[in-house]
């Protein structure tokens, strides 16, 4: 179902309330949002898919459309197959098609709860009416949500929901209970979106400083950490700009805490010099880069995967770096924790790439397994330092990783420098030193490659066709493969979450075993396909590229495969 309306009409609230109710009643929910870059007005929507089996992508067809504004009808009517369109009275006019049923949300709200603010809840009730779905779980949820606002507000919300429900049941929809939704309440399931999962992962990893400058769609991570900062002994600082944000995180990391910055493309542009600083000074740091379509300010609230080649090369000179791109919120949780461990182990910047689609996409899961939380700091203890004698911050080692002490530890001085430096950390421009140090830093990539995880393979083994994807496209790609496998098409998905560095041996071997390959990406130039070529010498057979600001749907992928006559 889709709920459309203007910003400020409470669409997100309706979406969240509906999603959570279904979650608790044992269904799998997938939610996603489309919003414009404005605080009020414009046309936004929230789309929810409810199923008794796991779902991780949006569908193109709708069973129920709730229209709070006129645009919801004009833009989405065609998506409704043989379902219902419920519209607010204000959204209909003479030209509105007949199958649209208008409901006076505002009047009902005023009548039963005394304020038009409750029209949201009336709409939720109406949806439940169409579904002929019991209101008890919804009532519990409303009580929880409005607990702080007091008994009266709770009562009014419950009354509003019931009024919406009754209006539909008693009126024009009477007797049309064509959806079979049998609740089967479960405990321990969660509903989480990509941004919250990254924030949660960062807290689990023990992040103690997040310094960022707000930029959609990354801001949610900063907000999430801020909400829990006091309880996790962390500080969230809103920096004056992205230059300060990353430099501040680097300073904090140098002094010993786990630090992170969050940003999107334009902000990341400003961070590139500091990214090089992290590489040169060998200071661990995690950069959360949530993509949106560029160039420049681009399409602030839409999605794209077009910053990959930039992330790979950002900063002057050559530095070792690691790039991870979570597939789903669950992956985002674990990959975020891993990002901190990798940053600490190799003393490098780790770029965690997401995008607007993953940022706002809600997935249902069983509880995350918190026993997997490990924090590996790779720091020298006071005892180890004492035994060491002379401490050199940039000691040359086989792995390229030097022992790390912190400023303030008695008996040692830690000297870090953005200039080329010697093992003690002091400026050294001699040619011999330069070569040794450059090689030492880049040597870290050898060890890091061994730590990189292979892509996962979804669908048939040894298929004739392999889709290749990375990051947030996993859900729609996996579902496209499932649908095609059911139709007996020999196809699978090879999907990457560990993006760089790629292991020529392990990954190269896996890739060489593939037949017809189609790289599917949310960009116009096939950036991941380019990476496969430069890193592995691998040529994909075909590409499907989408760069209209929207995410893939399973159907859109299948459509393209058919057009290309691949299937």
């Amino acid at each position: 179902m889709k709920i459309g309306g203007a910003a400020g009409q409470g669409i997100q609230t309706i979406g969240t309330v509906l999603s959570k109710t279904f979650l608790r009643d044992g269904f799998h929910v997938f939610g996603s949002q489309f919003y414009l870059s404005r605080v009020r007005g414009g046309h936004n929507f929230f789309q929810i898919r409810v199923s008794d089996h796991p779902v991780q992508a949006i569908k193109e067809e709708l069973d129920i459309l709730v229209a709070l504004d006129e645009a919801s009808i004009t833009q989405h009517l065609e998506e409704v197959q043989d379902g219902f369109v419920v519209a607010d009275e204000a959204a209909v006019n003479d030209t509105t098609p007949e199958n649209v049923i208008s409901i006076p949300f505002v009047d009902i709200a005023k009548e039963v709860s005394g304020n038009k603010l409750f029209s949201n809840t009336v709409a939720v009730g109406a949806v439940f009416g169409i579904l002929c779905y019991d209101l008890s779980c919804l009532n519990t949820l409303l009580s929880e949500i409005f607990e702080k606002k007091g008994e009266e507000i709770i009562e009014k919300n419950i009354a509003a929901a019931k009024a919406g429900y009754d209006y539909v049941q008693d009126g024009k929809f009477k007797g049309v209970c064509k959806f079979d939704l049998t609740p089967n309440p479960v405990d321990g399931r969660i509903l989480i979106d990509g941004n919250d999962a990254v924030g949660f992962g960062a807290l689990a990893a023990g992040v103690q400083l997040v310094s960022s400058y707000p930029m959609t769609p990354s801001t949610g991570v900063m907000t999430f950490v801020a909400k829990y900062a006091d309880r996790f002994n962390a500080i969230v600082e809103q920096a004056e700009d992205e230059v300060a944000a990353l430099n501040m995180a680097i300073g904090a990391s140098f002094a010993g805490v786990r630090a992170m910055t969050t940003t999107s493309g334009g902000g990341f542009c400003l961070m590139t010099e500091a990214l090089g600083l992290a590489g040169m000074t060998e200071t661990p740091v995690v950069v959360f880069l949530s993509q949106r379509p560029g160039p420049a300010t681009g399409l602030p609230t839409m999605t794209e995967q077009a910053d990959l080649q930039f992330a790979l090369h950002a900063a002057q000179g050559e530095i070792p770096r690691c790039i991870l791109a979570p597939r789903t919120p669950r992956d985002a949780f674990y990959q975020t924790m891993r990002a901190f461990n990798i940053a600490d182990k190799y003393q490098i910047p780790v770029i965690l790439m997401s995008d607007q689609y993953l940022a706002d996409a809600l997935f249902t899961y069983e509880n995350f397994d918190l026993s997997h939380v490990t924090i590996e700091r790779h720091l020298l203890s006071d005892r180890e330092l004492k035994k060491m004698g002379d401490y050199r911050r940039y000691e040359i080692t086989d792995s390229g990783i030097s022992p790390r002490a912190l400023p303030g530890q008695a008996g040692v001085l830690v000297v870090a420098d953005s200039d080329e430096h010697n093992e003690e950390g002091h400026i050294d421009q001699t040619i011999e030193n330069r070569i040794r140090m450059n090689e030492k830093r880049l040597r870290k990539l050898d060890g890091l490659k061994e730590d990189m995880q292979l892509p996962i393979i979804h669908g048939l083994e040894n298929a004739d066709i392999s889709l290749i994807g990375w990051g947030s496209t996993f859900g729609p790609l996996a579902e496209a493969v499932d649908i095609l496998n059911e139709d007996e098409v020999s196809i699978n998905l090879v999907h990457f979450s560990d993006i760089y560095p790629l292991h020529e041996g392990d990954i190269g071997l896996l890739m060489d075993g593939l037949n017809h390959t189609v790289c599917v990406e949310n960009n116009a130039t096939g950036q991941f396909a380019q990476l496969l070529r430069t890193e592995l010498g691998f040529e994909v057979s075909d590409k499907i590229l989408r760069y209209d600001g929207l995410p893939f749907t399973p159907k859109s992928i299948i459509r393209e495969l058919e057009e290309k006559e691949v299937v």
Partner: protein
Amino acid sequence: MVTLDDYKAGDTEWCPGCGNFSILAAVKKALVSLDKEPHEVLMVSGIGQSGKLPHYLKCNTFNGLHGRTLPPATGAKLANPELTVIAVGGDGDSYGEGGNHFIHALRRNPDITLIAHDNQIYGLTKGQASPTSEPGMKTKIQTHGVINTPFNPLAVAISLGCTFVSRGFAGDIEHLSSLIAEAVEHPGFSLVDILQPCISFNKLNTYSWYKERVYKLEDEGYDPTDRIKAFEKTLEWGERIPTGVFYKHDSTSFESKQPVLEKGPLVKQKYDPEELIDVMKSFM
């Protein structure tokens, strides 16, 4: 007891006679007078002749990017407020490339001392105008002479509520080192802007030029707690140039306003894993 020898380091790369040498001597003297052990001190610097200073004495050092002295210094101070954090930069570094960070460090008020080597010229890049260059000063780039109004760091600092605003002169090590010591002791952001002759590129603001003009505010019974007077003094530049503490006020630092730091330095804290379970409940 800490001695000057504890801070002794190797060769420098400055021009013989440069004002930076006196600043280096004054910094060492100040740290010794405060009995600070080198491992308790973190110097964060930018890029420029001035930015090399931390390499010429023994202490923890983070020599970062041009203009980016204050953000990493602030981050490090948040992570471990037990460190004595001193930021070092030139006038180009601190007020030009780093101008925005300067403004926002003043607003935050971290307990950091900024030592700004103000030679009114870019030294390392060989003699271009800096934000504090005198109008009319000719360089290879400003061929018709500087036409922009000079940046007034002291006035900006006072206007943004900085609670320790001072100016030193590289020709007077004694006075400078006591200023630096006082600034380091001050809880909150402290600015020590230092008149530093660059003998290679600034032929205008020379040692003798300064010696004729510089005077000490404390010699004239000046009261450094009056903000309006202090502001007036920052506008005095020409025949007479004041040095010393312009403005001083009680201060609550950025760090002491962070509830989380009441429990001790961040580096020494951990979270309780039980909290994770609680966060997960919010998604149910």
